[in-house]
């Protein structure tokens, strides 16, 4: 069985309309017979068939416009139609029916081995270098100039490229120079006569981190419509249970209250999946796993919130060990990038600083954040009596594009119930 395809009748022909069939199903056709008329931009062209045999099926109806190469009819070659050349009518041996000429292999950038060696030596990637040699060939000069230090960027000062280059090499601050070049532009002589300013120290990593945090927080503030709900939780049971457990444990296994709060938040998030998600490309992406980010402030300045993967799983002492490891690595600046980006929700606790309540900003791309204040002794009504209880004010910040105050409140009450049964965490 072979197919009769819409032929390419010209260099710039991409499609044709089947104007008229000249055969019907069941007709016998010979190599070279006119099988159809095709309407092209240049008019009606009679189209010949190159296979011989019996027309099995017409696949395209008259008036239909199809791209070049589309199958128009099926021609059965079982019946041994005698082709004009007397040979059998099996398809020509050598003709491989591939649509479109096979593509031509493309070589990489044209550069001699010596140039490639120099590029490697100077750590220049050839793909980025524009060849100045004949027909675009990359020369040694091209590689050397590509390895030149990029001139330090300065604001829009009218300065010649040469002057800017030597200013960068000499660390001269061009913004203070008066140009004597054409059109008042700064020229090399102006730079050479200026005294060299001390090289400004590169921005410290802390500054770079602060810039990043500033950018993220600004974005969050601009883009995320925050809503806040607050709730005060009696931490009495939790702290009492913690005291008991720590008494049985050695110093190295000792737990801090923070681990209870993290685990409780994780469990609450499991019940309220809407808060455990991220906002990506304009739509919310829920996460089956719960990785709670733990805000850690760094003494040198800056704040990170690495994620404790699957915070809702494993024993409390295992979670405690992971938490200790994460904090120490955070302090030492040895966090893995995956830890910095995989958090699904974040908990920030400023209780340590004795602050009662926190109204935090969400870490994008997350869509919720839990802020914990200090656990303080406060008057608390128990069974109609006013007693002193250690209580903690917890605030939930939520992204109103994704969830609302009602869902936030239900999350906080779930968190409260979980913290009342610490032994279950």
């Amino acid at each position, binding site marked *: 069985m072979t197919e009769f395809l819409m032929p390419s009748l010209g260099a710039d022909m991409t499609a044709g309309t089947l104007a008229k069939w000249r055969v019907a199903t069941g007709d016998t056709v010979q190599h070279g017979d006119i099988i159809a008329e095709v309407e092209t931009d240049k008019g009606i062209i009679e189209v010949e068939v190159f296979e011989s045999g019996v027309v099995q099926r017409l696949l395209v109806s008259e008036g239909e416009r199809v791209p070049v190469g589309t199958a128009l009819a099926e021609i059965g070659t079982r019946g041994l139609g005698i082709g004009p050349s007397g040979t059998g009518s099996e398809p020509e041996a050598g003709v491989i029916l591939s649509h479109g000429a096979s593509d031509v292999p493309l070589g990489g950038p044209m550069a001699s081995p010596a140039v490639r060696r120099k590029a490697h030596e100077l750590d220049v990637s050839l793909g980025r270098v524009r060849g100045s040699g004949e027909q675009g060939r990359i020369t040694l000069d091209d590689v050397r100039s590509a390895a030149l230090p990029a001139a330090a960027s300065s604001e829009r000062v009218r300065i010649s490229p040469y002057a800017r280059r030597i200013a960068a090499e000499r660390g001269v601050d061009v913004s203070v120079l008066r140009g004597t070049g054409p059109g008042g*532009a700064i020229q090399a002589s102006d730079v050479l006569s200026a005294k060299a300013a001390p090289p400004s120290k590169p921005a410290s990593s802390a500054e770079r981190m602060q810039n990043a945090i500033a950018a993220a927080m600004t974005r969050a503030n601009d883009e995320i419509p925050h809503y806040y709900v607050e709730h005060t939780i009696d931490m009495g049971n939790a702290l009492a249970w913690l005291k008991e457990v720590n008494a049985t444990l050695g110093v190295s296994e000792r737990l801090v209250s923070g681990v209870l709060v993290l685990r409780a938040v994780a469990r609450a998030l499991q019940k309220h999946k809407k808060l455990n998600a991220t906002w990506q490309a304009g739509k919310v992406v829920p996460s089956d796993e719960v990785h709670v980010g733990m805000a850690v402030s760094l003494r040198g300045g800056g704040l990170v919130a690495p994620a404790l993967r699957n915070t809702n799983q494993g024993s409390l002492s295992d979670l405690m060990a992971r938490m200790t490891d994460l904090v120490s690595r955070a302090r030492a600046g040895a966090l893995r990038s995956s830890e910095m980006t995989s958090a699904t929700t974040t908990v920030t606790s400023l209780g340590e600083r004795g602050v009662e309540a926190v109204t935090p900003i969400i870490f994008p791309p997350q869509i919720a954040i839990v802020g914990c204040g200090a656990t303080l002794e406060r008057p608390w009504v128990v069974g109609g009596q006013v007693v002193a209880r250690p209580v903690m004010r917890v605030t939930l910040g939520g992204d109103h594009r994704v969830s609302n105050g009602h869902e936030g409140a239900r999350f906080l009450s779930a968190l409260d119930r979980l913290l009342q049964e610490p032994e279950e965490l």
Partner: protein
Amino acid sequence: MTTYRDAVRTALQTLLREDKRAFLMGEDVGRYGGPYAVSKGLLEEFGEERVRDTPLCESTFVGAGIGAALGGMRPIVEVMTVNFSLLALDQVVNNAAVMRYMSGGQFQVPIVVRMATGGGKQIAAQHSHSLENWYAHIPGIKVLAPATVQDAHDMLLAAVEDPDPVFVFEHQMLYGIDGELDTTATPPSPWKALVRRSGTDVSLIAYGGSMHKALGAAEELGKGGISAEVVDLRSLRPLDRGTLLDSVRRTHRAVVIDEAWKTGSLASEISAILAEDAFYDLDAPIERVCTLEVPMPYAKHLEEAAIPQVDRIVDAAKRSMGGD
């Protein structure tokens, strides 16, 4: 001392004497002695077979030159001026330039075509074109612009020796200049530019007729304390990028002088090369001094205003120096 035209004739004589394959063909090259008296006396020495006056059919006698070159001869075809060569452009672009490539390397066309070029003789718009850039645009042919008496001689010998089609442009104002001609010294490669005068403050890049004006401008700038370097391109295809880039990397300023119209000129090509490959060495914008974009006027004062002159070159150099 020898004149530019005598230097060309000497080269033609040497070629016709030493290479049986060589012959001269063109309008009035024989009995008339050549429209610029370059071939005077050659008909008497070599006869009608080797010095052939052609009918006025530029396309066909240039095409016949290409055919003869294909047939193993070394024709030197003189097209009176570049203005008349436009009739033969099809043979140049679609036959001479592509024959080797299109035949997969089987056929070569070792033809030399010489033509006068440029303005300055008040022969108005149809006889004063500078179109070297049209030819220097075409891969498959080479283009030379001898500016000196020595080059006029050496370049023609090298061109006939070259297996590829070579087009030699002789500025019509140069035929009468005097210069030294040493026919024994081995000449420098015609495909390399030469620094005709070294300097440190600005590079004046020129070719052909404009080269002498650049030298004049350099003289005047020198009096004003500006050290100008003059680079003679000599070859317009291939362009010797190395020499002109080295010069500008040293002086950090460039003025390109070209008698063609500025738009799409060789001056534009050279400016692009400098902007691409000497960008971080430029201390001022590249200056171009070209013919005003008008059909060449007949009146002397207008023609002189149109064509690049020494004073315009000096002004451009001063502009690039900045200062007051």
